């Protein structure tokens, strides 16, 4: 990690890899399906402004996209698992996320407005949950994905409790 920031202490759950794999697969299917639609549309339209070398070989488009995209379906979940980490220490939430691009978030517990624990469809299947932390600003808000349900519940509760305590101190 070139940026002078140490890794947050905790990894997300290993099952998050499955979650990201499922999401990537759905994205892959949508993308290839969309490309196939575009190809059939251009193929059937007979537009004169489309160069003939393009309209003649338009059915290569979904194929090329599938071949280029397929490795990423496998790479993204593994890469994300290596990057996604979180930590709560010194009353600051420190989380890292992303894969190609990454993002570090620092949220002091004293500025937290709401903490939500959410579960999507797949997450419920896999026993995972997302903790959403919101402050008054989008740039001070974060969601930690792919946590084990138990861990997420405990984190959400700790945060809500501690935020309440700190706010009482402040007034």
């Amino acid at each position, binding site marked *: *990690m*070139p*940026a*002078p*920031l*140490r890794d*947050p202490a905790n990894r997300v759950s290993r099952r998050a890899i499955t979650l990201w794999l499922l999401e990537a697969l759905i994205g892959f299917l949508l993308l290839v399906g969309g490309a196939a639609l575009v190809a059939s549309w251009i193929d059937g339209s007979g537009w004169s402004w489309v*160069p003939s070398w393009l309209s003649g070989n338009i059915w290569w488009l979904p194929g090329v996209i599938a071949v280029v995209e397929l490795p990423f379906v496998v790479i993204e979940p593994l890469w994300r698992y290596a990057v996604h980490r979180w*930590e709560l*220490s*010194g009353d*600051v939430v*420190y989380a890292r996320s992303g894969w*190609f*691009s*990454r*993002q*570090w*978030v*620092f*949220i*002091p517990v004293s*500025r937290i407005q709401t903490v939500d624990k959410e579960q999507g469809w797949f997450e419920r299947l896999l026993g995972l949950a997302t903790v959403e932390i919101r*402050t*008054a*600003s*989008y*740039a*001070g*808000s*974060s969601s930690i994905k792919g946590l084990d349900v138990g861990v997420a519940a405990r984190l959400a509760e700790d945060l809500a409790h501690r935020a309440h305590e700190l706010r009482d101190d402040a007034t």
Partner: protein
Amino acid sequence: MTEDSGAPAEPGAGPPGVWGSGAVAVAPSRLSPLVLLIDPVRMLPSLLLPLVGVLFVGGFSPSSFFWAMLAIVGSVGYAAVRWATFTFQIVGDRLELTRSLVSRSVRTIPLERIRGVDVTTPPLHRLFNLAVIRIDTGASGGAKQEGELDGVPLPEAERLRHILLRRSQDARHEEHAETAGAGSASSGARTPTSTAVDERVYVRVPWYWLLYGPLSGAFLLTPFALLGGAIGLAFQWGSEFGLSERVAITVGEWLWNRPILLVLAGLLLVMAMPVAGGVMYAVFNWNFTLRRRGSSLVAERGLVTRRSVALEHRRIRGYEIAQGLLERRARVARLWAIVTGLGDSRTRGQLLPVVPRDFAMKVAAEAIGPLDAGLRPHPPQARQRRLFRAVAPGVAVAVAAVLLGWPWIGVLALVVAALGVPLGLDRYRSLGHAYDGARLSVRSGSLPRSQAVVERRAVVGWTVRQTWFQRRSGVLTVIAGVGAGSGGYAAIDTGEDQGVRFAAEVTPEWLAPFIAGS
């Protein structure tokens, strides 16, 4: 939050202490009855068309006149009933707006939620010395969440604003001083504006600075907007006067066959741009004054509609200075306040129109607070990235155009790419960040360049972003999360070490534990 609920406390039975008079219980106030003179005039345009229709269809017979009269009387009556059934009142620590037209609805605005109070005087209102008060609660639900009192006598409006803001600051002990000056409390009585408030005028913008207006580019499209409005109106009203699409097409064809006329009209419009834009700008920003009244900053402006916006001082978190390209040439700038919970901050938070930049900085330092640190430049990799991003789209389009066999578009795209070189360099020169121990500042952009100065205590968190390309260049973007203004202010493409140290410098207790090797 505000709410529309069923039946609350009886009117008049609320706790005492309404309109600043210490211990007297006061009946709910009404808007000035003079609004009844304004309402029908305002409804006229929407009534005119149906009325004209009725008269034409009915052939000016007595019965059609009767129906037209009925419509007018009905609308006036409706306005009167609306007026009679609307009351407002400060009860304890909240403002209640009660409307009992069909069902009784009460909108309750807790005074502590009030972020700002606008007093505007549209032309008709000014005729009767009335004002519209808009109460901003900072609710994100849009205009519906806010309170509006349309038609309060102007002195009363000023006093009301003062009371609302004062109350919302929880400064009850000062209330007694106010009581002496404020006197009677019914809305009809014109009590003079309280003079007990300490007031200080920061700026009264001289009229000749209005000449800078067209540089901002605002209102430059006025002639086109006017023309578009006229054409729209012609189409809307045309059918009433026997104009049809066929006529419009004939006129269009006639013009098309006389291109000289078209070119002349176009030239006229373009020439009218700075003039009309300047006039509009002057009308909106006439006699712009910025003053401190009590604990609020009050910006007042406008020739026809006089608009006055009060921003509570303790909610102001900083300011933003913006300059377009032309404005930078002329060394002028615009100034906004960054205020927590103020929707539409670019219009409402405006502190100064286009004025010389040094002057704007001086006013900002005086009215809000100075920034005593120079901007630190970003690393040379940031310059390469700005250049690449400004030039690459043009080059890409040029290559694609050449491949597709459209040489002219390719040449055009190359010209655009060449223009990207000075743009990219300038965008790099704009980048910078600073921290002086109390306020942090970031600057970016070129065609509009804007610099934000934000108090340290307003920061609620940090986001550090690094795309794959940024990682290869060894730069990253640091965004300070702020619960005001646009929500986040970014230092774009700082060095990796530089950016993280910047955040750690502003809030060391949050970041220090996570910095490697410290």
